């Protein structure tokens, strides 16, 4: 194109030049459109590809060794047993569920409270500082959170609650909540900010106090967005691996209290995939866990998506 440009330029008239430029622009636009299309499709292809890959690896296990009854009702996960190999994932599901619920119980009030405070109450200068600090919180690597869990929270929980070990549901819930809070705050704050000021002005014109305006008008108006923020935070909690591997105690155990150690689906895959010979039964069983995990996060994200869509339509 450059060569054509250099040779053709002196001979061309201004009118022709402009038509050449026009053509160039149309072509350029088409190329860019195609590139963007490829980018957009790549995400879809990638997700589909990952799903097919996980499914393909898990498929032989699903056909042969897998039984719904053992997988979903037995807590005995003995993939490398010396005597009898067992693949009961109930304790792993219970572990993932318990720390997800636990972390949401911690993250819900703190995350939403922070979002509401930043969006409705605090001064603009503090708002800037708080947002930066929260973003830093989001950038801490998960293995660092794992060390915090072992070295700081573990002895603290032993001392405070007089329990045998501090690596348990409580510990993991706190760590995961700290990891989910930045997500909840930044999306929740967006949702609150999307509520038009006219709502606030109308409420204040009717004599509502700041608190009443916030909790009776703004928060209800943004509730779909806040819910979506919560679900995305939850997605982070379900999918997290390294930090929970260290904070939960990684122990196969049906939890009965928040002071019990558990083991999650993700941490099991992370810890065991390296040893499992490729294509073996253990390897396929881990991919089956991956399949279930995929389904869970798919449902969570889909729900979040519907919520956000509802919230956009409303405003």
């Amino acid at each position, binding site marked *: 194109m450059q060569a054509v440009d250099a040779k053709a330029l002196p001979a061309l008239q201004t009118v022709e030049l402009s038509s050449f430029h026009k053509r160039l622009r149309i072509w350029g636009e088409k190329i860019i459109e195609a590139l963007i299309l490829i980018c957009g499709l790549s995400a879809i292809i990638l997700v589909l590809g990952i799903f097919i890959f996980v499914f393909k690896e898990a498929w032989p296990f699903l056909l042969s060794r897998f039984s719904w009854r053992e997988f979903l009702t037995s807590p005995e996960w003995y993939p490398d047993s010396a005597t009898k190999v067992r693949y009961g994932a109930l304790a792993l599901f219970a572990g993932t569920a318990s720390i997800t619920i636990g972390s949401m119980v911690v993250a819900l009030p703190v995350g939403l409270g922070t979002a509401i405070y930043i969006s409705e109450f605090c001064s603009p200068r503090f708002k800037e500082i708080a947002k930066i600090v929260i973003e830093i919180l989001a950038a801490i690597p998960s293995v660092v959170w794992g060390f915090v869990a072992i070295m700081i929270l573990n002895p603290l929980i032993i001392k405070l609650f007089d329990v045998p*070990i501090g*690596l348990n549901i409580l510990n993991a819930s706190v760590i995961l909540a700290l990891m989910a809070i930045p997500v909840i705050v930044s999306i929740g704050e967006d949702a609150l900010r999307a509520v038009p000021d006219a709502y606030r002005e109308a409420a204040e014109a009717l004599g509502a106090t700041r608190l009443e305006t916030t909790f009776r008008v703004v928060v209800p108006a943004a509730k779909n967005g806040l819910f979506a923020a919560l679900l995305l935070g939850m997605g982070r909690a379900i999918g997290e691996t390294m930090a929970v591997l260290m904070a939960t105690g990684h122990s196969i155990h049906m939890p009965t209290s928040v002071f019990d150690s558990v083991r999650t689906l993700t941490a099991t895959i992370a*810890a065991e995939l390296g040893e499992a010979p490729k294509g073996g039964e253990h390897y396929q069983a881990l991919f089956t866990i991956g399949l279930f995990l995929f389904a869970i996060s798919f449902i969570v994200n889909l729900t979040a998506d519907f919520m956000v869509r509802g919230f956009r339509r409303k405003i």
Partner: protein
Amino acid sequence: MHWDKTLRRSTVIFSIAMICVFLACTKKQGARTIIQNKGSDTLVNVAQAWAERYHQVNQKVSIAVTGGGSGIGIAALINGTVDIANASRSIKPEEAQKAKQNTGKDAVLHVVALDAIAVIVSKDNPIKDISIEELQCIWGEGGACSKWSDVRNINVPGCANNEIVRVSRQSNSGTYQYFREAILGERRDFKLGSRDMHGSKDVVDLVEKTVCAISYTGMGYLSPNVRALCISKKRGQPCVEPTPQTALNRTYPIARELYMYTLGEPTGEIKAYLDWVRAPEGQKIVNELGYVSIAPPPKAE
């Protein structure tokens, strides 16, 4: 037009220059040997130290060391992606067969060091010695010991419910597999519910911070804040402390050999490296890091 030409000419010159530089680099690279070394976490510190020291001895060879666990090292050997696999357990028959299938060569074993697995508790735990029987009761599937009072008539101060907190390793660890075999034999599993840590360092850190805990780790990872127990075969019999001497003369019951595996008999630089590792110079490093050197002359299998 003039600009165009200069540009083109300079591009050509630049590319030629780059190709020359590239060729020069690859030539230099060619003279250097890189040995890929991967596997056991127990051996990774020693392997790293060997690699660093050996690079000073022989500048032409550099050794890339990665950990991950014996299983990972052996898997890499089977795939032919490493030159030397570190392992704290011997290769399983099916793994050896797979290696032969994949690469056409046998996995060859070299004993490079000895290690004693210490059973560790918090230093605030009053227990001083423990028998293999008692360890079976604590660790084995179906074993009845869940409180410290089930093992001995002791109360561990600061430990809620006097509960025994079992801290273990993830199952691709050679230490995990060797401990299971040494304590429970080949036909028994660990009791579920242990807290499985992802490295020897995490195990020691956790035991330091947890009064109720009991765990096991290679001697090289011991710290002053944990106590290594004296081990007897049966309760009441005299116990043996985990020390280099007891590991070497095989009176300590949970001691093992640490291995390096190669595909086929090693030759050239790899052979030179393995010879150096097993020579007094390499074995000195083993002792420095808290493991036990193999008795001279090196035992070969």
